[in-house]
């Protein structure tokens, strides 16, 4: 068939045509706009709407930002400078930013929280980044005690004796080495508890009387602003991960009692709002402790926030444990590893890797939830902002303070979520 008309074709091209440019609608910016902005009429309508929204926002907000006033001592002064035009009065941040960051912390001692924050970065570096020298981990272990001492001040013996509790526990662990793991662990825990509960207070008294080394003490009620959010957030984050792992293992345990207690704890904490737990810390804790005991409000809040985050953390990690194929557990058993070795070497490294997004989300949630402490009278940024707005100089100012506070929180939380993406990429081992 195909050769039937071969001789009758009147014309056959025997040279190549020069390459032509693609049509204008299929190249460059036009093509991009056609494909990404006007791909069908729904897309076109959405594009026009979006541009309208953006234009409206810019039109409304640009003058406000463009006319910003940075130098003024009160809102009235701001308005005089603006002379009727709309404009932001960032002077409120400029005048009050130290208060927003440090609360009523004594100004001549600002170097202490700043130093604590800088050292915090040094302390977390070996945990966060593989490039950091591993020896820094020793500093990370010391850092919590150092930070407490720097922030609250007072005699150095308090934190040193508290730190020695761990040494006492370790000593007990070595001394009981011949008795098997169960007795060893129990003995170490009991020794440390005895040290902290019974011996610590008198030893601190004796030592601080004998060698009064210390720096000026700062009471908790002078803490405030972002400092308090960061203290509660960092403490909660550092404590809730290990406790959450234990609780998740408890919930997965074969022992009915351990499992039951874990389930009840997790479901109770997850079932009530954080704010009720904070009120419990501020109103009810005095009922549950021996008469006459009274301890620091920030410490109580840290305990409650930690318990709250621990329950969520446990559920996130349980998700990671459940996502592991059964073969991993069976493989660990087949190798003859005992429970803790199997968890430490086989299960947890994989389960934690799977749960990274959830863990970091819990951290972010915890950090954002630190704003709730304003309800029990701690002067966190929002509390400071209300106090600033209540002064006669700044009465009637809203947006500048909220935008500043929101922006600072945004930077921290967005940073954490980006870090979690980086960590996921770094730990990715499957082939994609």
């Amino acid at each position, binding site marked *: 068939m195909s050769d039937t008309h071969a001789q009758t074709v009147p014309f056959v091209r025997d040279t190549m045509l020069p390459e032509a440019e693609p049509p204008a609608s299929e190249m460059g910016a036009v093509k991009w706009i056609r494909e*990404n902005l006007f791909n069908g009429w729904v897309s076109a309508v959405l*594009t026009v709407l979006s541009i309208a929204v953006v234009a409206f926002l810019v039109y409304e907000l640009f003058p406000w930002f463009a006319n910003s006033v940075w130098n003024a001592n009160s809102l009235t002064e701001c308005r005089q400078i603006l002379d009727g035009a709309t404009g932001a009065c960032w002077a409120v941040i400029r005048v009050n930013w130290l208060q927003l960051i440090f609360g009523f912390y004594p100004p001549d001692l600002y170097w202490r929280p700043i130093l604590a924050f800088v050292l915090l970065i040094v302390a977390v570096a070996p945990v966060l980044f593989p490039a950091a020298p591993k020896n820094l981990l020793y500093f990370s272990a010391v850092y919590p005690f150092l930070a407490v001492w720097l922030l609250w001040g007072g005699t150095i013996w308090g934190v040193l004796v508290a730190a020695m509790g761990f040494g006492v526990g370790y000593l007990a662990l070595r001394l009981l080495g011949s008795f098997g793991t169960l007795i060893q662990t129990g003995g170490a825990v009991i020794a440390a508890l005895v040290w902290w509960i019974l011996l610590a207070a008198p030893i601190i008294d004796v030592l601080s009387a004998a060698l009064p080394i210390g720096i000026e003490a700062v009471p908790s009620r002078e803490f405030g602003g972002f400092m308090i959010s960061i203290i509660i957030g960092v403490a909660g984050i550092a404590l809730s991960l290990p406790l959450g792992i234990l609780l998740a293992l408890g919930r997965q345990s074969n022992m009915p009692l351990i499992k039951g207690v874990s389930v009840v704890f997790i479901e109770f904490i997850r079932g009530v709002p954080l704010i009720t737990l904070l009120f419990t810390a501020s*109103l*009810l804790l005095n009922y549950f402790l021996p008469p006459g005991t009274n301890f620091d409000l920030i410490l109580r809040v840290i305990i409650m926030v930690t318990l709250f985050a621990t329950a969520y953390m446990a559920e996130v990690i349980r998700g990671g444990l459940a996502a592991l194929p059964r073969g991993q557990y069976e493989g660990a058993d087949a190798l003859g590893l005992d429970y803790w070795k199997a968890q430490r070497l086989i299960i947890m490294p994989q389960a934690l890797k799977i749960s990274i997004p959830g863990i970091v989300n819990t951290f972010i949630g915890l950090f954002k939830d630190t704003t*709730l402490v304003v309800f029990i009278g701690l002067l966190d940024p929002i509390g400071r902002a209300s106090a600033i707005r209540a002064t006669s100089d700044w009465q009637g100012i809203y947006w500048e303070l909220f935008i500043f506070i929101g922006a600072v929180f*945004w930077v921290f939380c967005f940073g954490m979520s980006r870090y979690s993406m980086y960590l996921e990429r770094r730990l990715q081992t499957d082939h994609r």
Partner: protein
Amino acid sequence: MAMDSGAPQRSFTLGMLLYDTRYRSYTIQIFALILLMLGAAWLVDNTIRNLAALGKDFSFDFLWSTSGYDISQRPIEYDSTYTHGRAAIVGLLNTLILAVMACVTATVIGVIAGVLRLSKNWIVAKLMTVYIETFRNVPVLIWIIVVSAVMSESMPAPSAFRGDTPDASMLFDSIAITNRGVYVPGPLFDNSLGTVSVLGVQPSLDIIAVIVVLALSIWANVRLVRHAAKVQNATGIRPKTWWKSILILLAPITILLFALGFHLDYPELRGFNFQGGIQMRNSLLAMWLGLSIYTAAFIAEIVRAGILAINKGQTEAAYALGVQPSKTMRLVILPQALRVIVPPLISQYLNITKNTSLGLAVGYMDLRSTLGGITINQTGRELEGMLLMMLIYLLVSLAISGVMNVYNNRVRLKER
């Protein structure tokens, strides 16, 4: 010849309680139980001693004494002469109303934002990314306070609606947005059936009749569709149902509303304020909008993750089988995506319900502000009030997570 019967039988020794995995778990559990009971006894003993020292007893009698405070938003009849218990119920209802409203709007906004973030339209996708990242990473408390400030600072006062050329005007001549709240038209019935009294609450019979008729219509329609499916399975021909569905769903409710003389009550400016219609207070609006836009950002991410989680091969396989695109979405993609989406979605609903307790920040009278706030302050019953409040929150949360577990068990993939 005697066969060796495996491991030698060893008699029980005390050391096995520690070293034999068959018995060790009992040792650990008994030890844990003792510790737990000691701890509980310590707490209870402390509480009793503290209560005695303060000269207080442990009793819930305060729930039946006169409250003496007013609540601005009352779903059921209430004033300051009613009891603290009644105030707590009003607070709980306010909590639930706010939670349901916020869940609905957050879901709608979240689904739209999540789908649009996956859109091929560059500017829309970028805008949604900006929205989600902005709202997710700033505490919800700030959003609630910001919305509250917008409502009370930037909206016109009712007096701005006055005069022939007012500064502000009502939306569609029916919705007035003022700095005292938003006024929307409310339903009114001319031939009302009156109210009934159930357990001290007077629900309107009209509303009940409307709900009952709607429920019956929906039930009848479900029956109709099931019957059609059965006929289709048996004979291969699906009977036409669309006009029957419309008739069943719309006719009874129209007749009922007509018989009851249903019409809308529009808000009107009288004196210094709007009268008529339903007033949504600033506190409710701030909580509702603040919680909605904040949680919607999370829901958007959940929806996006759910859609992305479905393997592309599923769509291709459905096309290869000759299934239409719309049916592919409905029968293949959505059921699988929902399995991924629904559990975290319900846990967001739980979060909304718990976050309603932030109402304190803007003066919304929810359970925390009534029972856990004013009642506790007035009666000095912190312990009882807090315990009761936690119990109620816990029951609400457990009810929601119970629904989630039922769903999870129904759609779970069966593994070994």
